């Protein structure tokens, strides 16, 4: 199985999800190649050298590749993918945008959001917002697969790397897409999908101002912040915080949530968390069906008390 992992990066730093993808690749073959596309790759190259099981890192570098535009990236990937049996990416919005376009160019149906690799051609993936698990046989000349990062532990670092680097001169396609801008949801907090602790708020939090209370206890804990779609829609927090079927899929050690009722679309994004602690004033809220610890009561009372006791301890 010749396996290619497509690495992602932001701001010239390797995405931590790449390590999850290498772990998935290891289930298919002993080693893999990695493809790195972008405009400034030297730091990322160094980071890749700390990851195990990589043979060759293919570098496609050009100032014209500074933004991950699907129309530009897909033909480059499709061309390189032709030499591999399996092409793996970690599920992110960038992968969701690009990988199916690569698949269209290669006329192959891709397999997205894999959560388990049983063998070279048998895989599991969730459907219906995770309310059912599909077991599939996937046979294609070039298998195009995206994996759900939370389902694969990141591979550890190594100091015996045999990685070699090879530059490829790309033909950069003419496209009808141009970059305008990126409004970043900047945050000093840990990234949601990589966080050990997530404090999350829903419609029950009531306002943008109230949400600051959630933020301040999250900061006391060094936690990331999540939210339900209702909280995002109401403008309490940016879209980037949304957890669920159409938002981020997370699996932290602890998911602490306030005023989230637990709609199936929300549960789809967090029910693989190790410990779920839920506070809601409605004893019938479905969130209590998945919570390890539930508390029926006013969320503000809990937050105030928590803040006081954390400040003193």
């Amino acid at each position, binding site marked *: 199985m010749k396996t290619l992992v497509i690495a992602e990066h932001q701001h010239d730093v390797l995405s931590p999800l790449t390590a999850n993808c290498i772990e998935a690749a290891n289930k298919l073959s002993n080693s893999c190649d990695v493809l790195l596309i972008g405009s400034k790759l030297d730091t990322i190259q160094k980071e890749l050298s700390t990851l195990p099981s990589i043979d060759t890192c293919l570098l496609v570098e050009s100032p014209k590749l500074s933004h991950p535009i699907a*129309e530009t990236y*897909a033909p480059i990937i499709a061309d390189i993918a032709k030499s591999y049996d399996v092409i793996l990416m970690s599920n*992110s919005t960038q992968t*969701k*945008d*690009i*990988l*199916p*376009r690569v*698949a*269209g160019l290669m006329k*192959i*149906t*891709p*397999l*997205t*959001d894999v959560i388990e690799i049983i063998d070279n051609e*048998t895989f599991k993936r969730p459907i*219906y*917002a*995770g309310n*059912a*698990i*599909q*077991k*599939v046989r996937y046979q*294609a000349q070039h298998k195009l697969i995206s994996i759900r990062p939370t389902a694969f532990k990141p591979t550890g670092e190594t100091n015996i790397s045999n990685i070699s680097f090879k530059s490829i001169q790309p033909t950069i396609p003419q*496209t*009808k*897409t*141009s*970059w*305008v*801008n*990126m*409004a970043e*949801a900047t945050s000093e907090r840990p990234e949601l999908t990589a966080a050990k602790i997530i404090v999350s708020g829903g419609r029950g939090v009531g306002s943008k101002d109230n949400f600051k209370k959630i933020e301040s206890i999250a900061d006391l*804990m060094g936690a990331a912040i999540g939210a339900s779609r209702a909280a995002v*829609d109401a403008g309490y927090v*940016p*879209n*980037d915080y949304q957890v669920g*079927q*159409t938002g*981020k899929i997370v699996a932290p050690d*602890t998911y*602490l949530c306030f005023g989230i009722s637990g709609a199936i*679309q929300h549960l789809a994004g967090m029910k693989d968390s190790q410990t*779920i*602690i839920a506070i809601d004033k409605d004893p019938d809220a479905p969130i*209590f*069906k998945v919570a*390890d*610890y*539930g508390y029926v009561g006013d969320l503000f009372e*809990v937050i105030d*008390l*928590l803040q006081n*006791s*954390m400040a003193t301890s």
Partner: protein
Amino acid sequence: MHVLVPVKHVIDYNVQIQIKSGQVVHDQVKHSINPFDEIALEEAIRLKEKSFISKITAISIGPEDVKPTLRHALALGADQALHIHTDETLSTLNRAEVLQAIVSKENIDLVLMGKQAIDDDANQTGQILAALLQWPQATFASEIKPGDTWEVTREVDGGLQTIAITLPAVITVDLRLNEPRFASLPNIMKAKSKPCQTIPINEFNLTEDQAIEILEVTEPPKRQAGTMVKEIDDLIKIIQEHCA
């Protein structure tokens, strides 16, 4: 300008699905339009109301059962409907190939569709279609500004990204783009006289794509409900233990 809106007929998002003998139960279960596709259709209708486009065609691929979703699309404001009739479940590649054929047959300038269907959650068809057509794509749109080039704001990890694309193009939509209207009774009546054409799948000469074979569908491991904590002081202790 002619817009194509693919609409998928899926189990209603409010229904808790059931699994029996390795399959999802569809019989006697409420189905409706995929919510993302309804948002795509709403956007097309708004663009037509503002005269950026002139015609909306809704299309659905599937058995006879998908008709109510096409009628719903006509009642909301599509001008015509196409039903591609098949009793098989097509792969996303084959679905995109059908759409590609319709795009050229109907002289489509823009395909507006949901970013994913809530049944298979695949999030592929729009991107594959864009590749087959060699058209630009703007996925996960939360804002669409028509013009000489169309500016589309996309919901991505890390924030909101804006790109500009030249039509013809494929745009897939996210939930926050708009809030779909309800179909009014007069429009539901009027929809009955709008054209709805059925085309059998064999007219497309597809090479059946069987890359993915579904072996079985099972329930996910269930989480056990835990303990309800009565005393707020106990709760605080539990939180502190787990969030240190």
